[in-house]
């Protein structure tokens, strides 16, 4: 009897042990399969992006630009937030998923997390100057000794009224940075000096840096253009450039240097504002004006205002002088600069404060052609010291380009005229407005493209409902009360009938 009991217990024990082992093996096997598959799916991006604008993916245009990068150049993308926390935030996830996909497709591009709190030396390395900071929201693109640093905000457009992001612009920004940091030769943008220029816009300087330029200053009365000069920026001069009215062969004047350099393929970006908030009226600069006239551009002396189409930051009710511009349309090269933005269902606003009208003196002359890039709105008025009158749609940002044939290839160089100094100030070079992108696109056109920006904005899906509150409340009552009431009623009927059946 005891032996039988012992035998039964032994069988139970064997069976029980086998059952436990089997259970453990199955559970562990399932966990292992999941871990392996999750890892593979993570590394190989085994997911389907169901959003309309493929927010989480890399576009074919993006791939085409990344293919232009020398594959032997290592590019590192540093996130200053832990990777798992990036994935928990809607917006940082977009940036991270994009970089992850790029990294999976391009072996020379990788990403990592740097702890800026623990590793102060690393954080110090990415400070541009003593006043700069590295924060946890930064994304740093690095190759060799070159790097570009972004905050998360810089990768999005946001609505200045609601302060909500409405589009993701990270693909253009991040890929342009990757291209910029791998350029073998860093082109130089010179800021002219000696004419009272306003060269204090750090936001504009940052833009040039992000576009891949090294920034230097140049005093053309004392210096000549270097070989590496790609772009000259003239920021609202209040004194004229040195000319040579007597045709003195011993004098190589500023205007002559500038004219020759432009004829040899240099690019000029000139900002000249209207009546500034300080009350200073625009000055006439005959030598500079004459040079610009050869390129078909003439800055008028009036200042534009528009009560119907003007903005201030964070509001659509504007100060009249801060104009909301109108994008050029059509097939002109000026319209192509802004076509990506103009073609959106809700184009971002381009803001031109204290705008001066620009007259285009010719359409085409001596292998140079002109076009408008941004106009004022039809409701614009122009004001001068003596009168205010209707101005209508006039160019406030314009372009002129020269066509040259070099080795049987059509090559262009540009003069971009912006009739506003404030256009490039920090207030308007932010994610609320399109000013940043207009300038980026201009820089793209200047000689060998530094900034590949022909990448579409990824606009977020608009979930807004066009429903008034009364209607919404009625539907709510119907769904919350009527539908459940019907269900409960059916249930009660069934229950009573069964009870009495």
């Amino acid at each position, binding site marked *: 009897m005891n032996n039988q009991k012992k035998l039964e217990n032994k069988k139970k024990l064997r069976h029980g042990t086998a*059952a436990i082992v089997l259970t453990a093996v*199955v559970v562990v096997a399932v966990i292992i399969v999941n871990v392996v598959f999750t890892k593979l799916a993570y590394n190989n991006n085994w997911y389907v992006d169901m959003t309309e604008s493929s927010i989480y993916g890399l576009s074919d245009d993006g791939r085409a630009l990344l293919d232009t990068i020398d594959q032997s150049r290592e590019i590192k993308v540093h996130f200053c937030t832990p990777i798992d926390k990036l994935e*928990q935030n809607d917006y940082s996830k977009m940036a991270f998923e994009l970089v992850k996909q790029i990294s999976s497709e391009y072996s020379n591009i990788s990403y990592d997390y740097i702890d800026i709190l623990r590793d102060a030396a690393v954080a110090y390395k990415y400070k541009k100057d003593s006043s700069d900071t590295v924060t946890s929201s930064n994304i740093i693109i690095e190759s060799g000794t070159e790097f570009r640093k972004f905050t998360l905000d810089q990768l999005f457009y946001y609505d200045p009224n609601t302060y909500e992001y409405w589009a993701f612009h990270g693909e253009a920004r991040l890929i342009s940075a990757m291209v910029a940091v791998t350029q073998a030769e860093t082109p130089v943008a010179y800021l002219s000096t000696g004419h009272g220029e306003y060269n204090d816009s750090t936001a504009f300087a940052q833009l040039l840096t992000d576009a891949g330029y090294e920034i230097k200053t140049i005093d053309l009365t004392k210096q000549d253009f270097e070989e590496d000069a790609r772009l000259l920026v003239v920021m609202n001069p209040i004194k004229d450039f040195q000319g040579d009215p007597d045709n003195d062969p011993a004098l190589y004047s500023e205007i002559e240097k500038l004219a020759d350099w432009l004829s040899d393929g240099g690019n000029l970006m000139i900002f000249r504002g209207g009546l500034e908030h300080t009350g200073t009226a625009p000055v006439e600069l005959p030598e500079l004006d004459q040079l610009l006239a050869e390129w078909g551009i003439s800055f008028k002396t009036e200042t534009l205002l528009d009560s119907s189409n003007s903005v201030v930051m964070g509001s659509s009710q504007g100060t009249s002088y801060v104009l909301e511009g109108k994008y050029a349309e059509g097939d002109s090269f000026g319209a192509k600069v802004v076509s990506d933005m103009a073609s959106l269902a809700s184009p971002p606003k381009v803001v031109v404060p204290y705008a001066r009208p620009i007259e285009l003196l010719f359409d085409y002359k001596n292998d140079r052609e002109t076009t408008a890039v941004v106009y004022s709105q039809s409701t614009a008025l122009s004001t001068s010291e003596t009168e205010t009158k209707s101005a209508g749609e006039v160019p406030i940002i314009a372009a002129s380009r020269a066509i040259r044939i070099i080795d049987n290839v059509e090559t262009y160089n540009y003069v971009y005229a912006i009739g506003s100094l404030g256009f490039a100030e920090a207030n308007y070079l932010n994610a609320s407005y399109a000013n940043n992108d207009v300038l980026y696109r201009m820089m793209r056109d200047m000689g060998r493209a530094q900034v590949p920006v022909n990448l579409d904005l990824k606009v977020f899906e608009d979930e*807004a409902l066009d429903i008034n509150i009364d209607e*919404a409340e009625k539907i709510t009552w119907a769904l919350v009360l009527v539908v*459940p009431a019907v269900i409960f009623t059916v249930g009660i009927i*069934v229950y009573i009938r069964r009870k009495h059946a």
Partner: protein
Amino acid sequence: MLAIYKREMQSYFTSPIGYVYIGVFAMFNSLLFSIFTLLEGASSSSGTYFFVSMFLFIVLIPILTMKSFSEERRMRTEQLILTSPVGLMSMIFAKFLAAFTMFGGSYTLLNLLNISFLYKYGEPNTATLFGSMLGVLLVGSAFIAIGLFISALTENQMIAAIGTIGAILFLLGISMLNNFVGSETIRNILSWISVMSRFNNFTYGIFDFAALLYYFSVCFVFMFLTVRVYDKRRWS
């Protein structure tokens, strides 16, 4: 298996429990839908609605699963199950399927009604909407499997319900612990376990195959464990 499935489905609709479940679910689900979409109007967010609606499962899924096996034990009818020619896995799968049909059917039909208003007053992305719905159904199926397992462990329906509530709360809340954990390794482990972190991708508009496998695995593991519980009873 079909017979067990039919019997289970009948039991939901011949007793008040099915109607109470669907009625309560319809009421609160529609309320959440209205709060986060219709009443928001221009700020409508279907992703938030789908995310928040899962917290209804804390109460609703235990209602469905609490009696599945514990009732059988209490009524002493589980001997019929244990001696039935139907395999244990088939029997358990049939009960799971019945509970999932109740949950999935009512959820799908009610949401189709709700979502029709999004199409009437807006332009939603169909793929994202239905991806989110699928994500919710997958989460629900995982919770049902867990609920059935807990129901198999006890003959007391209340204990089964409370146990399931606890398990669901744990799985839903585990990802919130990430905010308090300094170690990235531990955060990754918690995220791996967390149902919510797997679900979030669906609300972003991402159909994640790894998440699909995860939910299927949870269903399989807990149904397998339920089989093991009954297998032990059969031989003890």
